[in-house]
């Protein structure tokens, strides 16, 4: 590594286009490219470029992990616990091992092991065909000693509830992307309270309040339902381990594998091609990954392990269930004086069932108290899921603020204008209100017929996250072709496409001219694709590397054109003297002057210009959070209880938007996942047996193509002068506010507030009848 390059001052675009666009001076290193002008002045960035892998995906040519089949491939399958809580007395795998198709049997839970949920892995086999693997599982004999169990949040909190973990045993801390406090007290199944974020004196705040409101809110367990199941193909060889995995973090899985199996990083290669959806649960190696690799090591053959849909529902993670009691104190003008949040949540046998920093950070309030508890139950482990914590947190807080507005006789937008310090959300409210027709909103109960219509809104809050441990390489080859390389993965968000755009912009080429090679740890280690951090992490070094290669090209070409390198520019596929465009070389011809077959630059993510607000290990948060405001128009049939969401207007910000088409697509998905969470989804556990009652897609309800709302997406161009691209993520802020926006619209339609998710027809009818 070289010494840090000297700093110099540059002026970057700053502000919201259409509101006030100015400049901000930042100290930047000489290694960094010059400021990028606003999108209006750019050729490729900010334009609706078509997804570069779309053709492969519409023709079936795209290769997903489940499609990988090296010669000699064995199929693995897992035997899973049929009981919610049991001790393994004895396990006999002899008959399974003698099955002619079986190549290896692995005991995961040996005699004496405690199993804590239905679906926990007990044993694994690798066989020549899936049918042989399934037959072998049926030959494994296990003697279970059943133990008392608990599968509901309320019962688990009682002192005489069966303990999920024995007294004195620390439960394993889990949750990539969810920070989990260490060393919290634990009584029975209840771990906590976690009080991080508390500030001021809420007792004094409530004493100062003219109005106090209080409500209890419940949110359900939601499962990720990635259409491609969790899948891995592991190929252990003497020279090293190659793994294909449907993962959100190739570089992280490589680190885990090296550590788990005592290998050097250089002996482990993790790859992902097309990736069939990732919403938080595909962030780590996970037990099934370790099992597949162990089976490959044991057999000396490649092993594929693909979850069935039932296994997906049981044991790949889920959004934890929560119960929140929220109290707000406010002055007559709406100014908040106190926020008090008590939360009990369950991530099954795991931790991380909190409700994030939503109530803590969204609004100005000097006094804030929070107590969050993880409650253990005998169910599959929770994990990060799109907007973890803040999604259930928003459902409570944004309804409470709506209720406060009603109590104070204030318009919900006017109240937020008073208490929300974000200029970005203020503009988002303004644009969204105009688009949804907020001025036509009428008081609850105005409609005379059985179908009541209403409009509601809710806000988003998510960190502008960055993985500082991010690198990539850009290569220019002598024939003028350009490659961009990183281990970063594209979950279907379009990461590969925006990388092509960023590199193409720097070289004044078309995105199609850039070959993007990603999803392979043989390339420089990229960021994880969780926490909405891919774009913010990888696009700045991609531009920086491209710019550095461009400077190297200029140094080669300058003598040919008879000028100094600083006088050269790239435009429309030409290298030219900036002041005299007649003196020029075609890009390909210029590359032909390279002294070697290729030149390349590897760049790492530099710190945000002006620094981060918070930095921990490999991750950091920008000084300014991401916002977002959703407006929903609903029709509630008060005779059937059906809520129909007719329109959603989603207004979002993500710094510099790199590809408005891809952003629009991802926001559509965020809104639909939020709508599905609001109205339909619910993993149901059977109390007498501890089994999941809806472990497939026929009984676990997801929003489908019928009864879709019209979704309008508006995206701000918000420049902050923070990096070489100034671009941030969109995935999570686009889903967080949908459910409370719908709930607030239902209140506006009916005058009844629904505080439990999902808002099913029976829940609506019960609320209308006053039976909440």
């Amino acid at each position, binding site marked *: 590594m070289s010494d840090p390059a000297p700093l110099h001052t540059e002026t970057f675009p700053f502000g919201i286009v259409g509101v006030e666009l100015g400049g901000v001076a930042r100290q930047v290193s000489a290694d960094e490219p010059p400021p990028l002008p606003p999108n209006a002045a750019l050729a490729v960035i900010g334009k609706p470029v078509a997804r570069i892998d779309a053709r492969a995906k519409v*023709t079936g040519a795209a290769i997903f992990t489940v499609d990988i089949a090296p010669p000699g491939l064995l199929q693995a399958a897992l035997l899973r616990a049929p009981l919610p809580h049991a001790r393994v007395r004895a396990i006999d795998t002899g008959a399974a091992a003698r099955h002619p198709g079986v190549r290896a049997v692995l005991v995961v839970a040996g005699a004496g092991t405690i199993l804590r949920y239905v679906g926990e892995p007990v044993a694994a086999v690798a066989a020549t065909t899936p049918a042989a693997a399934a037959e072998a599982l049926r030959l494994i004999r296990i003697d279970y000693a059943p133990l008392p169990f608990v599968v509901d949040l309320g019962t688990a909190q009682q002192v005489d509830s069966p303990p999920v973990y024995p007294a004195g045993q620390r439960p394993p801390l889990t949750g990539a992307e969810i920070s989990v406090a260490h060393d919290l007290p634990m009584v029975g199944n209840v771990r906590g309270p976690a009080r991080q974020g508390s500030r001021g004196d809420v007792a004094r705040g409530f004493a100062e309040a003219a109005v106090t409101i209080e409500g209890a809110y419940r949110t359900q367990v939601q499962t990720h339902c990635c259409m*491609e199941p969790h899948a891995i193909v592991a190929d252990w060889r003497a020279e090293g381990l190659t793994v294909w995995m449907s993962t959100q973090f190739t570089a992280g899985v490589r680190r885990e594998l090296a550590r788990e199996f005592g290998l050097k990083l250089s002996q482990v290669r993790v790859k992902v091609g097309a990736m069939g959806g990732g919403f938080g649960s595909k962030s780590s190696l996970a037990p099934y990954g370790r099992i597949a690799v162990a089976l490959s090591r044991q057999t000396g053959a490649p092993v594929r392990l693909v979850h069935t849909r039932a296994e997906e529902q049981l044991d790949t993670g889920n959004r934890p269930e929560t119960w929140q009691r929220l109290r707000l104190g406010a002055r007559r003008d709406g100014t908040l004086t106190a926020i008090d949040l008590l939360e009990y949540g369950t991530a099954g046998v795991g931790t991380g069932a909190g409700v994030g920093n939503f109530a803590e950070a969204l609004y100005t309030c000097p006094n804030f108290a929070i107590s969050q508890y993880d409650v253990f139950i005998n169910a599959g482990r929770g994990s990060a899921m799109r907007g973890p914590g803040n999604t259930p947190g928003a459902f409570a807080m944004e309804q409470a603020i709506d209720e406060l507005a009603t109590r104070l006789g204030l318009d919900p937008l006017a109240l937020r204008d008073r208490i929300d310090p974000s200029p970005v959300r203020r503009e988002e409210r303004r644009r969204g209100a105009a688009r949804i027709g907020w001025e036509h909103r009428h008081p609850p109960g105005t409609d005379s017929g059985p179908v009541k219509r209403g409009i509601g809104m809710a806000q988003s809050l998510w960190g502008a996250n960055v993985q500082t441990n991010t690198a990539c390489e850009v290569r220019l080859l002598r024939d003028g072709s350009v490659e961009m390389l990183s281990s970063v993965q594209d979950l279907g968000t379009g990461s590969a496409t925006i990388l092509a755009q960023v590199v193409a912009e720097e070289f004044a080429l078309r995105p199609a001219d850039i070959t993007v090679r990603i999803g392979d740890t043989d390339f420089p280690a990229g960021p994880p694709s969780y926490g909405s951090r891919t774009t913010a992490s990888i696009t700045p070094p991609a531009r920086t590397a491209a710019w550095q290669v461009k400077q190297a090209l200029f140094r080669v070409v300058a003598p040919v054109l008879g000028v100094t390198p600083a006088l050269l520019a790239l435009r429309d596929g030409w290298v030219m003297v900036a002041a005299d465009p007649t003196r020029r070389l075609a890009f390909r011809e210029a590359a032909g002057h390279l002294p070697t077959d290729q030149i390349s630059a590897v760049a790492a993510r530099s710190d945000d210009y002006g620094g981060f607000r918070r930095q921990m290990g490999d991750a950091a948060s920008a000084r300014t959070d991401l916002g977002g405001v959703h407006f929903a128009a609903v029709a509630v049939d008060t005779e059937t209880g059906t809520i129909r969401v007719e329109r959603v207007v989603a207004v979002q910000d993500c710094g510099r938007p790199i590809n408005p*088409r891809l952003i629009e697509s991802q926001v559509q998905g965020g809104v639909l996942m939020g709508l599905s969470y609001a109205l339909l989804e619910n993993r149901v556990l059977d109390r007498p047996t501890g089994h999941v009652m809806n472990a497939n897609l026929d009984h676990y309800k997801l929003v489908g193509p019928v009864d879709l709302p019209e979704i309008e997406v508006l995206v701000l161009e918000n420049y902050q002068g923070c990096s070489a691209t100034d671009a941030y993520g969109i995935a999570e802020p686009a889903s967080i506010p949908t459910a409370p926006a719908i709930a607030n619209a239902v209140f506006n339609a009916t005058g009844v507030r629904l505080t439990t998710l999902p808002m099913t027809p029976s829940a609506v009818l019960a609320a209308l009848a006053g039976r909440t």
Partner: protein
Amino acid sequence: MSAVLPEAQTPSQPAISRRSLISGAAATGGTLVIMSTAPEATHAAEIAAPPVLGPGALAIVLRVNDVQRPVTVEPCATLAEVLRGPLRLTGTKIACNRGACSACTVWLDGHPVASCMILAVDVGPRAVITIEGLARGGTLHPVQEAFIAHDAVQCGYCTPGMVMSCAALLDHAPHPTPAEVQQAISGHLCRCGTYNHVIAATLAAAATGRG
């Protein structure tokens, strides 16, 4: 629903009822009959007296994307498994494996079916078209073109099935209404949330008049 067996059957093509599919006693083109040991199936066999084949693997020929593909299959293998496994046509995707999501949709004699819900041995002489067989040479089907233009693709896992249902719709109803497109994809699930773009793309493909 797109994920159903075609109702129309040719005379030489005995109808496959849900009952016969469940019992495992479905005749396919009069050449191949698979028996299960279920009492119900035994009873059916006494009436029809078809030859008993199985329980071991069977050699069959599938007509896939206009090519005759000899393949050896277990009687219990679904069409989706055979396409993805021995035939290496991995464009067809399995997501739920029980007919609840339509990711595995292919055409049987031009009709969209969930290939996870039909046994390979029951296909018989019917023409199977998979996503790999939809484009003609290098020319994409107008629905495929429109999916690209309207960004009706995100992760792409549900996409092949979605494309097959939309393309089949345009073959049978060249100028569908938005409601008809919704109906055609009503059995499909997409977690990325591409539905609105899929509908827009299919209507746009119809407007080109080439569907």
